C-alpha cells in the first residue's frame, strides 16, 4: 500500500490552528491571589520553625508567634504546590499564613498579597507620579511603589499598586482609578505620604480621578504589615480636593481624626452649605465619628469658605499643578 508523501502542513496554518485553540484561554480573576497564596504558604513553611521567635519579637505579640509555631501554617515535608493553593482558594479566603501573620488585621480594604512579619513603619515618599520610593522602617530600607495598569494601559480602570520592599516581599493591592485616556497624561498619580493618622506611620495618597477643578484621592495604609486601600462605609476612599467657584472640598489631618469638608451652593443665592465630617482611623477603615453642617452667608470670596476647601495635611498638595 502506498501512502505517498506526507501532507505538508504549512507553518502559517499550524500557527493559526494553535492560536485558535487557545485564544479564548484567559486568566481566572483570582489567579494572582492564588499565586500569592502559594507564596505565602511557602514563606510560612520556611519561617514557621526558625523564625517563630523572631516574629514574636518583631511583632511584639505572642499571639502571632503562637499562631505560626502552633502549626496553623502548613506543615509537612514539602512546600505546597500551586494546586494546593488553588484548592484552598476555592474553600475559603483566609489562608493560614495570613491568619498567623495578620492576627491583628482589620476587615476592610482590598486584599493585601504579601507578608510583612512584624511591625513596619513608613516614613517618606520622595517623588510623585506613577512610582516613587517609600521608606518602610524609618531607617535605611525603602520600598519602590509603582502603579501598574491592568490590561490596556490607555483605557483600563483597573490598576495595581505594587509595593516592593527590599526585604519583606512584594505587596500588591488592586484599585480602581480613571483611565489614562480620561486623566492624561498619567492616569492615577502618587501624590505623596503623610502621617495622617498620627501613629508614627505614614499613609500613601494617590490621585485616582480628576475633573476640571476637583481631584479625588484615595489612601493606602499599612495595617499589620499589609498595604491596604482605606475604605469609607465599605467603599474605597475618594477624598475630594479642590473645586470650582461655587463648590469646593478638601481634608485636613491636623487633628487626631481626618476632617473631610466641603461646600456647595445653599438654598438662596447668597448662601453656601458647608459640611465637615470627622473620620477616625480604624485599621483600614475610616469610620465617621461626627458630622457638622453649617450655612455660610456671603460671596465666593468670603474667607470663611476657604476653610472648607483645600488640603491641610503635612506637605501634601494637589497634584493638578504638577501635571
Amino acid at each position: 500500500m502506498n501512502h505517498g508523501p506526507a501532507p505538508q502542513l504549512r507553518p502559517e496554518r499550524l500557527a493559526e490552528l494553535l492560536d485558535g485553540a487557545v485564544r479564548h484561554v484567559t486568566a481566572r480573576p483570582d489567579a494572582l491571589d492564588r499565586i500569592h497564596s502559594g507564596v505565602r504558604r511557602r514563606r510560612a513553611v520556611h519561617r514557621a520553625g526558625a523564625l517563630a521567635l523572631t516574629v514574636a519579637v518583631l511583632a511584639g505579640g505572642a499571639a502571632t508567634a503562637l499562631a505560626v509555631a502552633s502549626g496553623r501554617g502548613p506543615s509537612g515535608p514539602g512546600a505546597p504546590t500551586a494546586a494546593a493553593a488553588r484548592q484552598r482558594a476555592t474553600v475559603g479566603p483566609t489562608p493560614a499564613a495570613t491568619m498567623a501573620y495578620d492576627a491583628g488585621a482589620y476587615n476592610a480594604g482590598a486584599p493585601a498579597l504579601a507578608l510583612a512579619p512584624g511591625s513596619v513603619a513608613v516614613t517618606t515618599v520622595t517623588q510623585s507620579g506613577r512610582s516613587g520610593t517609600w521608606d518602610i522602617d524609618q531607617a535605611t530600607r525603602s520600598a519602590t511603589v509603582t502603579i501598574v495598569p491592568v490590561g490596556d494601559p490607555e483605557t483600563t480602570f483597573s490598576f495595581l499598586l505594587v509595593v516592593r520592599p527590599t526585604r519583606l516581599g512584594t505587596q500588591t493591592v488592586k484599585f480602581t482609578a480613571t483611565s489614562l485616556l480620561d486623566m492624561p497624561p498619567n492616569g492615577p498619580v502618587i501624590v505623596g505620604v503623610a502621617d495622617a493618622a498620627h501613629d508614627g506611620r505614614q499613609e500613601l495618597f494617590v490621585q485616582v480621578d480628576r475633573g476640571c477643578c476637583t481631584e479625588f484621592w484615595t489612601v493606602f495604609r499599612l495595617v499589620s504589615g499589609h498595604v491596604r486601600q482605606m475604605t469609607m462605609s465599605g467603599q474605597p476612599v475618594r477624598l475630594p480636593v479642590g473645586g470650582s467657584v461655587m463648590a469646593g472640598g478638601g481634608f485636613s489631618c491636623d487633628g487626631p481624626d481626618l476632617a473631610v469638608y466641603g461646600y456647595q451652593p445653599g438654598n438662596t443665592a447668597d448662601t453656601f452649605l458647608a459640611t465637615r465630617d470627622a473620620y477616625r482611623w480604624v485599621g483600614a477603615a475610616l469610620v465617621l465619628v461626627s458630622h457638622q453642617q453649617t450655612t455660610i452667608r456671603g460671596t465666593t470670596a468670603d474667607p470663611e469658605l476657604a476653610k472648607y476647601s483645600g488640603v491641610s495635611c503635612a506637605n501634601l498638595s494637589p497634584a493638578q499643578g504638577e501635571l
Partner: protein
Amino acid sequence: MIESPDQQDLDDFAALYVGHYEQLLRLAVLLVGDLAAAEDIVQEAFIRVHRTLESRPLHSPLAYLRQAVVNLARSELRRRLVRMRHAPRPMPDAASAEEGACAAISRQEVIVALRRIGARQREAVVLRYWADLPEAEIAELMGVSVGAVKGYISRGLSRLGLLLEAS
C-alpha cells in the same frame, strides 16, 4: 505571540504577571493539553519566580518563567504517564479525565494531535510556531542543540500534518 520582554516592566512582578500570565497559560495548555493542569503549572512557575525575586534579581524573568513552564509541563506529563500505568482500569461508563471545564479545549483537533506526537516535537513546534521563538532560543530552553530543534520541528510538522489530515 509571546512579546519581547520589556525590561523595565519585568523589574516588577505584577507587571510580569499582567503582561505574560495569559500567554504562558496558553503555552502550558498547548504543552499539556488541559486547562487545569496548565493553570497549576503557570501558577507554580510564577510562585517560583516570586520566591526567587525575593532573594536575588533575575536577568530575564520571562525567560525564567518560560523555562519553568516547559520543565513543569514535562514533569506533569511524566506524572501522568506513571498514573496511567498504575491506575486501576476505569469502569466502562466512567467519565474520562478530560471531561469537565476543559473538555472543550481537550477535544480540539490540534490539541488532540499535539498529544499524539513526541513530547520534544510538541515543545519545539509550539515554541516555534505559537510562541514565535527563534530556534536558538528554543534550543537553549529545551537544553538541546539547534540542529536537534530543527529535526524536532521538521518531524513534528510532518506528523501533525498526517494527524490533522486523518482527523
